[in-house]
């Protein structure tokens, strides 16, 4: 992508007394992309968003929006608008006046305000609800009003603070798609803060993952899922089996490792982690494991084990397999193609894995060296 | 947010405006001159000493105490039951009842006083301490109800259910669980309603007849310039008593809101 950067965060930092909420954050956001800041609560993602919006001043570093340094520019003068977690719908105004709120600050003619409000409400599928009172809205409607109220301002960047967390599951999934469509239609940059990995993955072009105030990895969702850069991210996003391994050979881009269960394998080296010592940890996604009653053929590593638990999820089935020499059972998940559960607890089974599915997570932290 | 605001300065000046006038009373009560004006002539405790010899004053004080105590008991017991009903139960007319008991707060004093005088005379209650007590209970009830409501608000109803579940009777549950937990609220209500009665003037002025309460006594003394220093001394003592009672009430009120943890 060669799109220009709409937002540049240059080494921004936010301290509250001794507490560092965001530390040395560098991030470029491209024009027209849907970007998510993902992380557990308290990781600093909301603080980062609020520094872009102008509700908080960075202790150090610069926020540049559309080429302009935002230092000293208050929130009301920035080309960004926000959808708040609580939606912040003005309770004393009806839907139409809520959406028109910001336009009335700009000296726009009455007729144009009316036209733009109508257009914005139609965009979020609330056409004709101008006169509805703010207190008579459902959760989903409040969210749509909040969206319309921000989008009607035609911001260069729309900021969304956990926009779907107040909705129930079904509505949340529906809104994920609607917001994605809206963003693609309008071509406006969306920056969303969320703690929900599925929400981030379904909606975003790119995801930035934050832990303890640090931005750890920025990637497109499939890359993030397939190549998490360290164990923190690997365990935060999706499910992952963690296994110890020993490095026997270290080439340019590859490692030769031996594992307690899958034998010796050649895997891709993770450039993001330090390769000190011979003890490393590897990760394997449960759905990347083949599980069968007979030893499967054509796999780089196989091992025999015994089923301990079976968990039926509907769309797939999870098996926990106890393997000799491995402390915790290994999880394998199989899509539920034929509406059958093939293995029972106590059954002897084989697991197979391709070396391409094995992720290098660097030095083993969980084991004393 | 951290800019040193004009608001903070304003707030400080406002506090001065609130406190300064009240603080002049004790200040001049120690002034040996008889005129309340600067400069202060000298310091003395004479005005306080002379109070002990005033028999009408002592009688007025006793009257106020009696009225205050009975008012506090009456208002708090009615407030206790009403507040429990408002917090625990949903019933028809609840809103109306809750609004009604708050009414005494907003009726102009002169109207309460004059109308009660007319009523009491009509039904044969002569102006007396009884009449004042009945009137003060009316005025103090909203205070008791709101204090008791906040005490019951913080009271987890499942505690009573647990006591039932463990075999207590209704009465025993009330005595062993409910009462001890809301006790600080009750004490706060007693203190506040006592203070309301102790400081009240207009109603007592109309209803006390020839048994003046302390504020009515003070009113009669204000007119005599010669008595001014003594009135100041008495007023200062009254201020001190009110503030002490309030601080005590506040202490108990806070205990009542923390006690459910």
């Amino acid at each position, binding site marked *: 992508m060669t799109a220009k950067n709409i937002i540049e965060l240059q080494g921004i930092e936010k301290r509250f007394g001794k507490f560092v909420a965001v530390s040395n954050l560098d991030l470029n956001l491209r024009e027209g992309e849907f970007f998510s800041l993902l992380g557990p609560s308290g990781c600093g993602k909301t603080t980062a968003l609020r520094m872009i919006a102008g509700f908080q001043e960075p202790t150090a570093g610069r926020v540049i929006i559309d080429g302009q340094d935002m230092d000293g520019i208050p929130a009301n003068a920035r080309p960004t608008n926000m959808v708040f977690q609580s939606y912040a719908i003005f309770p004393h105004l009806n839907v139409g006046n809520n959406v028109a*709120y910001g336009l009335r600050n700009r000296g726009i003619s009455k007729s144009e305000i009316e036209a733009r409000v109508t257009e914005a409400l139609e965009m979020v599928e609330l056409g004709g609800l101008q006169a509805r009172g703010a207190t008579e809205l459902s959760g989903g409607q409040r969210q749509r009003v909040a969206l319309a109220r921000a989008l009607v301002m035609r911001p260069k960047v729309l900021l969304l603070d956990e926009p779907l967390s107040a909705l129930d599951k079904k509505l949340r999934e529906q809104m994920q798609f609607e917001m994605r469509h809206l963003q693609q239609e309008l071509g406006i940059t969306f920056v969303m803060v969320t703690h929900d990995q599925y929400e981030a993955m379904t909606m975003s072009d790119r995801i930035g993952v934050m832990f303890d105030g640090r931005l750890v990895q920025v990637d497109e969702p499939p890359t993030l899922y397939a190549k998490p850069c360290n164990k923190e991210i690997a365990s935060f996003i999706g499910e992952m089996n963690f296994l110890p391994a020993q490095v026997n050979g270290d080439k340019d881009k590859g490692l030769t490792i031996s594992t307690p269960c899958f034998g010796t394998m050649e895997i891709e080296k993770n450039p993001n982690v330090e390769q000190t010592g011979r003890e490393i940890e590897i990760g394997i996604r449960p759905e990347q494991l083949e599980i069968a009653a007979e030893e499967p053929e054509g796999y780089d590593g196989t091992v025999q084990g015994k089923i301990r638990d079976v968990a039926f999820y509907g769309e797939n089935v999870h098996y926990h397999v106890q393997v000799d020499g491995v402390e915790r059972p290994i999880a394998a998940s199989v899509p539920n193609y034929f509406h059958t559960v093939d293995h029972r607890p106590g059954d002897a089974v084989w697991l197979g894995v391709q070396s391409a599915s094995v992720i290098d997570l660097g030095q083993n932290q969980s084991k004393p060296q | 947010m951290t800019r040193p605001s004009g608001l903070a300065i304003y707030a400080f000046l406002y506090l001065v405006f609130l406190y300064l006038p009240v603080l002049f009373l004790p200040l001049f009560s120690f002034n040996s001159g008889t005129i309340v*004006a600067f400069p202060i002539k000298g310091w003395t405790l004479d005005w306080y000493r002379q109070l002990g010899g005033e028999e009408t004053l002592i009688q007025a004080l006793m009257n106020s105490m009696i009225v205050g105590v009975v008012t506090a008991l009456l208002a708090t017991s009615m407030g206790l039951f009403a507040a429990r009903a408002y917090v625990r139960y949903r019933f028809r007319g609840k809103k109306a009842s809750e609004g009604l008991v708050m009414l005494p707060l907003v009726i102009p004093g002169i109207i309460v006083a004059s109308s009660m005088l007319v009523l009491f005379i009509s039904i044969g209650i002569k102006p007396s301490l009884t009449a004042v007590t009945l009137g003060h209970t009316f005025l103090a009830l909203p205070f008791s109800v709101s204090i008791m409501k906040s005490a019951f608000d913080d009271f987890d109803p499942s505690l009573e259910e647990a006591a039932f579940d463990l075999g207590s009777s209704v009465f025993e549950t009330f005595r062993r669980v409910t009462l001890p937990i809301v006790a600080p609220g009750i004490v706060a209500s007693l203190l506040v309603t006592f203070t309301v009665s102790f400081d009240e003037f207009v109603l007592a002025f109309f209803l006390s007849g020839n048994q003046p309460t302390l504020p009515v006594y003070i009113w009669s003394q204000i007119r005599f310039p010669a008595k001014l220093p003594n009135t100041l001394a008495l007023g200062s003592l009254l201020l001190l008593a009110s503030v002490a009672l309030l601080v005590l009430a506040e202490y108990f009120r806070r205990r009542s809101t923390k006690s459910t943890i």
Partner: protein
Amino acid sequence: MKSETAKGMTLSAPATLYVGFLVAAPLAILVAYSLWTQTYVSVDRTATLANYREAFTDPLVRHLMIRSILIAAAVTVATVALAYPIAYFIALRAERKTLWLLLITIPFWSSYLLRVFAWKLILGFNGVLNSALLGLGLIEEPLTFLLYNEFAVVLTLAHAWAPFAILPIYVSIQKIDPSLLEAATDLGNGPVQRFLRVTLPLTIPGIIAACLIIFIPTVGDYVTPSLVGGSDGKMIANLIQVQFGAANNWPLGATLSLLAMMSVGFVAILFVLSATGLGRRIR
């Protein structure tokens, strides 16, 4: 087990009946008295509107009634205007809210009579303020406009009612979701616009409550006009008291009480309607 309704009604009955009786019965008797007439020491119980006729034609009554309402209105405006910034400060800026609230309410617990008395001493010709200003050489001779006029009444009552104005406004500001203020900023408001378009309209209920709590009792205030009002500051309550005291004309006193109550109610309703209407027009 008894129903909730039965339990709730039983428990709340003593308080409800007590207040209900002491509101309704005196009112009924006041109405009755207002229709009777007093001839020297005996009361004539033939129903007549004579008292009302007298009240409506007597210029003194009209004058005092209008003055009471105007003074009460002035007190209300002054108190609420002075109190709003404090409530705003405590709700949004102050770090130790409970301490501030306690500080604001403590003076209220001193006797109202004594607080008014204190103002009388401060504002008097030979009073605290004049003697202090003379002593500092700021004035040549005592200021005479301080005591015994409407100004003294308004000042004294604005002081006396302070916590009643601060608390309801504080509660209404406290209830505003902070993200509403952020949303207003985000949509382009500066601090002043944001206050006028969001904070103020959302605190109108608190302002209305504060105004009513102050205005209604003030119209019928007796102590302050008596102590610091002088002849220019007398209010309707003083006249009512005279009827029940020195003049010994209870029927006229009852009539005046009822008329005062009705005027207060009328003005209060008018005020609530216009204030809510005004609030709705802010967009």
